[in-house]
């Protein structure tokens, strides 16, 4: 890949991160006629290099931040010393051109109207940062449609009685149902629930030059070697590059955003693959580095003018971290399901999406039918009568082809005490302060996870499972959903960016990724992050053209 721009060139926009949001924004800006450099800390993979290698991709950071180069510390009590995570980092994110869209499961639900106004409808929840969004579902609907058609989503419009209004159907029909989907549908309907074909960002037929899914089974935690699963690497980034105005620079690890005497951003410092430091100048910067790295970068960019971190006059940069909670019930059936084949999820339901005061806790979510992880991780989680080794355990492993789970995807409340800060002692391989995470699930989040898990267990029972097991709901110490850490809002005292993702404090700095979310969603945030990115990209390009940046 040749370099289009030099560090000394002042480009219109620098986009930090090439994942779900960064890739989309780069395309929208470049197609609007602006010059863009995308800095991505990870490498640029070719599809041909992707492997069905669970050890590498799940345990050795093949596609993600790893525990050695990007060490992190974790604690669940803000008064305790955070512990180094030696095996797997607590916060796990995509590292490579495409970011998390390389290895995600590709569940592509839209949010519902309620998600944006839940605080007004339900009232305050004491001790939390529960709040309305500064935008509504109607504001975002055109961009959800854009995601479905530009990125490519398979699904069936009109199938769910709970779905919010939409202006267009899905561009592709649903993927073929799996045995888990048939059983889930059977059990749920017996209980009077409303299962529907899962909307997935995976091609059920050839779409926009990418092939249909070959059902290899390696979606969740793996990158798709045929390109049937949508990633920004295979969709919007090639579009952006085709304009001739966008350069994606992999192996570029940003260490600092600089500001000038007027408090405006001038550019960013980054390390190249040989750890040489560069400084790229830009008229404006968009940070889409994910809900962990975006706040970390702002905190690392503290200077005399911004002593508590860039764009942090609210003190909320890094705060209100939300993980979502995914609980599960597992079922073993008489015959083979062979869930290791094809995509993770083919049926979902949203009957329990809304929070209901009768349940005694805040929260709601969706349920889906799936295998869960591929063999090794499945085996690590398995147990027989409470023992996870020995003859009975080995016999349990043989049930792998006859097993499935109903996974829940639930809410997390925003708490100031759940946050990302810079570790005072630990440094990463580049000598930069490591991420320190403090996180403890709110009791309502755990109650909601148990509630949803129990509904899943009922569906498995109704579907005729020989045996149903409820996985324990314990406090989380790691996550792949990194949300809420630079929230959007109208009030600069209680949010970091405005409703167009512009920092309240720095007019030419924009943040758009999971960090922008005000509430946690129901566990499938990527679709919404991409819709926000399409919307942000359109508005930011308009501001740039009007000279309003």
């Amino acid at each position, binding site marked *: 890949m040749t370099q289009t721009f030099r560090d000394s060139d002042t480009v219109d926009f620098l986009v930090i991160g090439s994942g779900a949001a960064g890739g989309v924004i780069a395309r929208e800006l470049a197609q609007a006629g602006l010059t863009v450099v995308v800095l991505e800390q990870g490498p640029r993979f070719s*599809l*041909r290099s*992707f*492997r*069905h*290698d*669970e*050890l590498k991709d799940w*345990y*050795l950071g093949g596609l993600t931040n790893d*525990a*050695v180069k990007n060490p992190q510390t974790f604690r669940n009590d803000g008064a305790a010393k955070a512990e180094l995570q*030696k*095996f797997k980092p607590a916060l796990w994110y995509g590292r490579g051109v495409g970011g998390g869209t390389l290895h995600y499961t590709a569940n592509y639900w839209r949010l519902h109207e309620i998600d944006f106004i839940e605080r007004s409808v339900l009232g305050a929840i004491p001790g939390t940062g529960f709040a309305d969004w500064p935008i509504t579902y109607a504001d975002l609907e055109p961009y959800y449609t854009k995601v479905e058609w530009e990125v490519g989503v398979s699904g069936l419009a*009109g*199938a769910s*009685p709970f779905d919010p209004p939409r202006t267009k159907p899905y561009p592709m029909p*649903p993927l*073929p*149902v*799996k*045995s888990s989907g*048939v059983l889930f549908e059977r059990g749920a*309907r017996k209980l009077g629930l*409303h299962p*529907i074909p899962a909307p997935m960002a995976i091609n059920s*037929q*050839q779409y926009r030059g990418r*092939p*249909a899914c*070959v*059902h*290899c089974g390696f979606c969740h935690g793996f990158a798709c*070697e*045929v390109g049937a699963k949508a990633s920004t690497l295979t969709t919007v980034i090639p579009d952006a590059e085709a304009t001739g105005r966008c350069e994606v620079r992999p192996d570029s690890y940003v260490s600092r955003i600089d500001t000038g005497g007027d408090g405006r951003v001038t550019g960013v410092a980054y390390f190249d693959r040989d750890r040489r430091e560069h400084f790229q100048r830009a008229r404006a910067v968009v940070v889409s580095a994910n809900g962990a790295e975006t706040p970390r970068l702002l905190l690392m960019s503290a200077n005399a003018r911004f002593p508590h971190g860039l764009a942090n006059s609210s003190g909320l940069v890094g705060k209100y971290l939300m993980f979502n909670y995914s609980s599960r019930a597992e079922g073993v*059936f008489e*015959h*083979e*399901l*062979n*869930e*290791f*084949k*094809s995509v993770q999820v083919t049926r979902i339901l949203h*009957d329990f999406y809304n929070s209901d005061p009768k349940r005694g806790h805040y929260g709601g979510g969706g349920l889906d039918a799936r295998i869960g992880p591929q*063999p*090794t991780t499945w*085996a*690590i989680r398995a147990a027989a009568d409470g*023992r*996870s*080794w*020995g*003859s009975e*355990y*080995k016999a349990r*492993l*043989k049930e*792998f*082809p006859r097993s499935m789970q109903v996974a829940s995807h639930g809410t997390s409340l925003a708490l100031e005490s759940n946050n990302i800060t810079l570790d005072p002692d630990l440094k990463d391989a580049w000598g930069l302060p490591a991420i320190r995470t403090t996180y403890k699930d709110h009791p309502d989040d755990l109650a909601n996870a148990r509630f949803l898990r129990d509904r899943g267990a009922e569906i498995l029972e109704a579907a005729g499972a020989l045996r149903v097991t409820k996985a324990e709901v314990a406090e989380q110490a790691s996550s792949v959903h990194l949300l809420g850490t630079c929230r959007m809002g109208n009030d600069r005292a209680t949010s970091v960016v405005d409703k167009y993702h512009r920092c309240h404090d720095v007019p030419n700095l924009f943040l758009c990724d999971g960090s922008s979310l005000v509430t946690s969603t129901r566990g499938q945030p990527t679709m919404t992050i991409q819709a926000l990115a399409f919307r942000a990209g359109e508005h930011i390009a308009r501001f740039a053209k009007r000279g309003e940046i």
Partner: protein
Amino acid sequence: MDSPTLSRRSLLHALAAAMATAAMPVSWTEIAQAAQDVHAAGHAGAGAGAAKLSFLTAAEAADVEAVASQIIPTDDSPGAREAGVVFFIDRALATFLSQLAGDYRAQLGDFQAACHERHPVAGPFASLTSEQQIEYLKGVDQTPFFNTTRVLTLLGMFSLPAYGGNRDGVGWKLLGFEDAHVFRPPFGYYDRDYPGFVIDLEKIK
């Protein structure tokens, strides 16, 4: 036996079947090539040179293998021993999980010392009878040493054979996991006669 020749043949067979029935206008030659690359990488070097230890001492390896063999015992089907798990663990600690090596050696030493205290005349853990080993492990199966050994054993059991364990795919055979790269519906018993999705017209409250 999961020889490369057989696997390649079954892969091509699956692709041929898919091509015969699919109306999808995709480039199957490209997909076949991608799948082949994936397969070749997973099996390259399987078993070769895997019988040498580079981190664990022979005595340590004997005890680790004995513990692994209680986690996935050998009965009517192969277990951790036949999968070569101890060689996987040795390679992991020497190379791609070397950050765990120091702690692991210390924990293993504590395990060996405590076992010796309990069975002072019987020799190391590996020399105990299987019943004694199980009895002993029941008392320590919540320790960091056991948990790490268990995870490493399962990684060695089910990871790609190229990493030195899962010899001849015995781990995958135990699970009933098929090492193929293209599948076609129906995938299992329950989706065989699925009549198609019908929108539930019964309205919600």
